[in-house]
């Protein structure tokens, strides 16, 4: 049994900034993450971020992760890496070791001997920074080894430096599909094409231009209809779509690929929030079901907060800000206040507003405000 002020699930951008702000205010803080490395999905982002300087523009995600990790460590935050949170109640988190090795910090992993180990964490406040899951689309053969999330391929090449395959078909032309295509090329794989069901490219023009310059065709109004192969992918069949999104007979083309990457969006990972009994609300703009929360990110269950992609799919930059807000809110409700919390909250709110202000993001701003409006009546009052 471990007793802490603040338990955070997820060591990504939102989880780490939550922990940092909590620890700064004197909270005894623990962060649990099932992955062996801290940083969440930042560690596979080797491209430079866009935006303004306070949002790390020009910095690669992997470097942001390192910086946040060191900052959290310096503040005395306990990082439980290789631990999975499997149950939650207000004030209590149950965790189980996922690895066969001790993973605590930068030190080399030490083999862990013995049976599965579980631990209970009593926490005054819990922040769920559980991030997102990749959406899948279903087509013939979609479960064959070799069909994987684009994020999965990105993790394999950029974090572990292993090619999951040599020749890839990318499904989806949003920013994830475009960026991962480029990064697959950087890692030495071939990308036969990007198919996009819509009639226009989903992601930013600058990313699309890069992959096109590298010779990868982007086929709009096309989708994958079949993964070929017996025990692994040996080919992919694509087809053109008509205006009702149905494949046009006779338009099929076959690609000689061993990997099909699916980049068809993300959805909030709300499993723990659901287990905790947090009320969810459906918002297509935010990626699906999201926990209802108030403007301080507390859910409908008192003492449980959310931050980052779990509360709506956005960018790492917004996750960093939401984490800070959740950390300040949780600490403050424990009576652990910083010297200028009000001002800091105002600054964070302003930055979030700016981040969500662009033409791409206005619908997100509206959806978040809608969620908070529901939250103001559904969430517990101080």
């Amino acid at each position, binding site marked *: 049994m471990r007793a802490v002020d603040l338990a955070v699930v997820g060591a990504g951008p939102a989880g780490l900034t939550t922990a940092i702000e909590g620890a700064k205010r004197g909270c005894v803080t623990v962060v649990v993450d*099932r*992955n*062996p490395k801290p940083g969440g*999905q930042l560690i596979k982002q*080797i491209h430079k971020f866009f935006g303004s300087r306070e949002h790390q523009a020009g910095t*690669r995600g992997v470097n942001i992760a390192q910086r946040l990790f060191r900052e959290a460590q310096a503040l005395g935050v306990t990082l439980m890496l*290789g631990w*999975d949170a499997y149950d939650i109640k207000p004030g209590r988190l149950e965790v189980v070791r*996922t*690895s*066969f*090795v001790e*993973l605590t910090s930068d030190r*080399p*992993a030490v*083999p862990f001997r013995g049976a*599965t180990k579980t631990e209970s964490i009593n926490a005054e406040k819990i922040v769920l920074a559980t991030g997102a*899951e*990749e959406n*899948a689309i279903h087509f013939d053969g979609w*479960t*064959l*080894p*070799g*069909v*994987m*999330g684009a*994020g*999965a*391929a990105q*993790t*394999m*090449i*950029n974090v*572990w*430096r*292993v*090619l*999951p395959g*040599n020749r890839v078909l990318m499904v989806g032309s949003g920013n994830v599909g475009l960026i991962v295509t480029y990064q697959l090329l*950087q*890692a*030495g794989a071939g990308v036969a094409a990007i198919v996009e069901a819509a009639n226009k490219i989903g992601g930013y023009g600058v990313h699309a231009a890069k992959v096109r310059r590298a010779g990868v065709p982007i086929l709009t109004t096309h989708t994958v209809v079949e993964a070929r192969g017996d*025990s*692994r992918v040996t080919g992919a069949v694509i087809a053109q779509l008509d205006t009702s999104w149905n494949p046009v007979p006779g338009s099929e083309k076959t690609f000689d690929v061993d990997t099909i990457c699916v980049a068809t969006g993300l959805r909030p*990972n709300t499993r723990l929030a659901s287990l905790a009994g947090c009320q969810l609300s459906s918002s297509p703009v935010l990626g699906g079901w999201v926990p209802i929360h108030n403007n301080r990110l507390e859910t409908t269950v008192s003492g449980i907060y959310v931050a980052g992609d779990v509360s709506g799919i956005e960018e790492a930059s917004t996750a960093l800000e939401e984490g800070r807000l959740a950390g300040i809110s949780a600490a403050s409700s424990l009576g652990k206040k910083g010297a200028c919390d009000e001002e800091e909250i105002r600054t964070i709110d302003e930055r979030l507003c700016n981040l969500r202000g662009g033409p791409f993001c206005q619908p997100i701003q509206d959806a978040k405000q809608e969620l908070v409006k529901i939250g103001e009546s559904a969430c517990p009052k101080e």
Partner: protein
Amino acid sequence: MRVAHHPILGDLPKLRETKIQVDGKQIPAVAGEPIAAALAAAGIRVHRYTAQRSEPRGIFCAIGQCTDCAMTVNGIPNVRTCITPVVDGMVVETQHGSGQGNPR
């Protein structure tokens, strides 16, 4: 295949190489990398076969969410190989169904 050279990440640093046993065969691995990475580097794609229809499954999410990459490791079934780091001498087996029938 390992990504030895990379325009952003640079050359692959010298890593602590070890070996793990997969279905009775020794394959090279890097201590601390996920089992799934070692398998991918060795060209092994099938991690398990499903219980009802014996369909093959491999890496799908690579971050511990989907459980498609589960295998039997050191006799323990349902180990997510994408988040379980390699330890010297690990014994990894392709899992069939729930893994109860895998030899111990």
